[in-house]
């Protein structure tokens, strides 16, 4: 920024602060940590599953400071490094739909909105045993989602399940992991009634639809919410354009005034003297460029919805009935940038072709619930994952986001899905790379590649094959589970 000469003082030149200075300090900290060999591991395995379908034979992986730094057959173990051996190494399993680590009040919250962050409600100080069990089962990362009962549940969070991590900054990998909404979930026991002006009793359900007409409206509300986000983004972009234009105009004017600086100064002095003579107050000359474009009023909810409309944050909608899924697909057709993810989708088989065509991933919850379940889940079947995959739908597998302890059993539920027709390789993909890709974590997680976080499993056999028990688990480069502990 250059100093502005006095005639230009009224021009509201903006000032921007730079935070660039912070990053070198971080880099220095990284370098220091590299000296510590206690975080260096070499994992040797007969088979390394780089990503689903890509296997390296007799390979070693060097892990340093939480990351995979080398993968090679002829890797020597550095001094002081810990060596681990096993049959198969693959990426840690990811549960994209979990409740593990959420306080009950966060999970059941019905007042959440688009700006509510599940990350703020992650409780790392209880249920350590559940995290340890999940980790032992191979689930290293979970996407937690609060407010599943609410129409808008807010932003999900990806959290490492290593119980040794007790600070949010270490455990939370992503704090805006999809914006959650839900459609047509029944809420037994939470219905409220109000008496209308005509004395009739009317059922209230908070923000949630319970009857069929309400449900149609609920789909419209989802679309309307995305539309407000789209408009908000449009206004933001407009403002940015106006601001640019304004800046340009100011620059031009500045240039012009600088060119005629002496003349302008003289003229200003003259005006000043004249005012003094007449005993009047001197007024600076007004320029039309003074008028700064007005920034749109900040709205936290709309800002998040804007990110959803622009495809920066995926929209995860839990919806089960075929009619609602179809309506949702129809209502969101116009939002070309929207990245829709459907969770649950019990009755989605009849709309599988559309889901495949629109490339909408589905988080299937292979549930073992019996016949007494809410009606929207009545069609839920263990064969859903296999059937959807056969229709070309991208299938993720999650533990349902209601029961914290269920994350531990996700690999078993995935195995059941395999038993009911899902290809084992697709099941493995569903638990690793697909979750990472769907939620923009693929540059860090979901595969075994140089530079990726070392969330790794060492197993006795290929995942979803007989004898595939987990022996070692690495979480963020820490050896968290061994056969001994």
């Amino acid at each position, binding site marked *: 920024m250059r100093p502005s000469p006095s005639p230009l003082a009224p021009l509201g030149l903006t000032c921007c602060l730079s935070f660039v200075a912070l990053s070198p300090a971080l880099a220095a900290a990284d370098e220091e940590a590299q000296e510590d060999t206690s975080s260096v591991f070499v994992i040797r395995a007969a088979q390394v599953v780089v990503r689903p379908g890509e296997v390296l034979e007799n390979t070693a992986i060097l892990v340093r400071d939480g990351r995979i730094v080398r993968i090679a057959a002829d890797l020597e173990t550095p001094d002081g490094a810990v060596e681990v051996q096993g049959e198969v190494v693959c990426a840690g399993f990811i549960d994209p739909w979990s409740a593990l680590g959420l306080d009950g009040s966060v999970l059941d919250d019905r007042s959440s909105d688009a700006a509510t962050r599940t990350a703020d409600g992650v409780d790392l100080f209880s249920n350590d045993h559940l995290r340890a069990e999940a980790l032992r089962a191979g689930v290293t990362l979970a996407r937690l989602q609060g407010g599943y009962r609410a129409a808008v549940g807010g932003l999900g969070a990806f959290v490492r399940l290593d119980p040794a991590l007790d600070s949010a900054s270490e455990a939370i990998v992503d704090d805006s992991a999809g914006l959650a909404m839900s459609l047509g979930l029944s809420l037994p026991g939470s219905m409220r009634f109000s008496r209308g002006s005509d004395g009739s009793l009317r059922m209230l359900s908070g923000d949630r639809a319970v009857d069929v007409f309400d449900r149609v409206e609920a789909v419209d509300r989802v679309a309307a919410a995305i539309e407000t986000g789209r408009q908000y983004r449009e206004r933001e972009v407009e403002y940015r354009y106006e601001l640019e234009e304004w800046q340009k105009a100011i620059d031009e004017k500045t240039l012009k005034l600088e060119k005629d600086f002496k003349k302008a100064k003289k003229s200003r002095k003259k005006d000043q003297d004249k005012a003094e003579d007449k005993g009047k107050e001197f007024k600076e000359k007004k320029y039309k460029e003074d008028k700064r474009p007005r920034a749109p009023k900040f709205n936290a909810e709309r800002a998040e919805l804007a990110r959803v409309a622009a495809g920066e944050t995926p929209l995860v909608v839990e919806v089960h009935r075929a009619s609602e899924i179809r309506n949702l697909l129809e209502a969101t057709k116009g939002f070309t940038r929207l990245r829709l993810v459907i969770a649950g989708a019990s009755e989605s088989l009849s709309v599988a072709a559309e889901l495949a065509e629109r490339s909408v991933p589905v988080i299937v919850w292979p549930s073992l619930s019996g016949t007494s379940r809410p009606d929207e889940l009545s069609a839920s079947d263990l064969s859903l994952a296999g059937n959807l995959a056969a229709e070309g739908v991208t299938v993720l597998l999650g533990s349902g986001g209601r029961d914290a302890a269920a994350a531990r059993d996700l690999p078993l539920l995935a195995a*059941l899905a395999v038993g009911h027709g899902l290809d084992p390789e697709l099941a493995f993909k569903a638990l690793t790379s697909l979750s990472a890709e769907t939620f923009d974590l693929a540059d860090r997680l979901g595969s075994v590649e140089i530079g990726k976080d070392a969330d790794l499993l060492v197993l006795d056999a290929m995942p979803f094959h007989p004898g595939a028990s987990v022996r070692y688990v690495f979480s963020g480069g820490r050896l968290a589970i061994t056969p001994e502990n």
Partner: protein
Amino acid sequence: MLTLLLTAASLALGGESPPPVVPPETLGSPKTVFAGTVTAFKASRLYLGDGRILEPGVLIVNDGIITRVGGDLEIPSGAALIEHEGCITPGLIALHSTDGVGAELSDTTRVALPDADASHAFQPLDHDFARARAAGITALVLAPSITSLVGGQSTVVKTHGGTIVKRGAHLALGLSSDALNSGRFPTSYDGALGELKRLFSDPEGPIARAVAGNLPVLMAVNTRAETRRALRFAAEFQLKGALYGSTWAEDLSLEIGESGLAVICDPFDVGDSARSVRAVLALAKAGVPFGFGLDAPGRHPDCLRFGAALCVRAGLDPQVARRALTSDAASIAGVAGRIGRLARGLDADLVLWSADPIQLTSSVEAVYIDGQRVTQH
């Protein structure tokens, strides 16, 4: 006599002609498996149910009864041959369930109903049984609700054909808090035990048979204290039978072992506590015979296998787990002479799996009850 029958069958059908190889998928209709015919099942692996494995194995079934089991048996001429690449096990047995009985088996107003017979609530055509079959379950124990002190007698049924394998399998006793607090007498543990002792001290009918050791009891328990109380009660009246409820059995496995009682484990579900799993491991270590409850239709029939898989993942010997689902379960239900194993003379209740049933990735490819194919795939 069976060999005679086989010879007769082969003579009648011309003797020398090679056995017809019929692909399993065409065997759905009763037309192909006709009565009086010999069927041979040949599989890559047979789990006999008692822990033994045959690789490969052949099973000869005549009129719904297993007549021979062996590693490399000659297929009788004239027999329909079903070749299966995968495993065959005896049908799974769920030890505690309420499939197809609706609201029956739960009498909330009465304290003791020793004469109530669960077989009267059996509705064989209910869709619950089709779901159970699809999960490889060929028999289950319909048990009275645990909300009465004496709930009545359980019954063992097959999931196809309306067959009642055994009436009066157990006398169901409620020793958990579920039998209390129902707004009727008794409302406390001591009240409940006092009433039970009164009934068992001057026994009549089924209770007298239980005291005489002729009718096993099934004692529902939840907590450690309830388990201990049940063990003491059984010892006092020298009762035989099983505990229903294993969650807290980890520390009590030795005591349970000494009591001679078997255990029916609580049904397992997703996310169940590690304690329940450790309890099963402890029971296995103590040599206590155990099987799994299911309590369908409130639970998914696959919960039966899920529970076994959960325990195997935690270190239970797969062989013990497979026994718990078949032969041990049959012994606990008192029907080991008819079902639960692949052995000569037992009912041909079989499941054709893609692989080991303990692996949840394995799928049910066909189910046979009394030698008849009962699933459509």
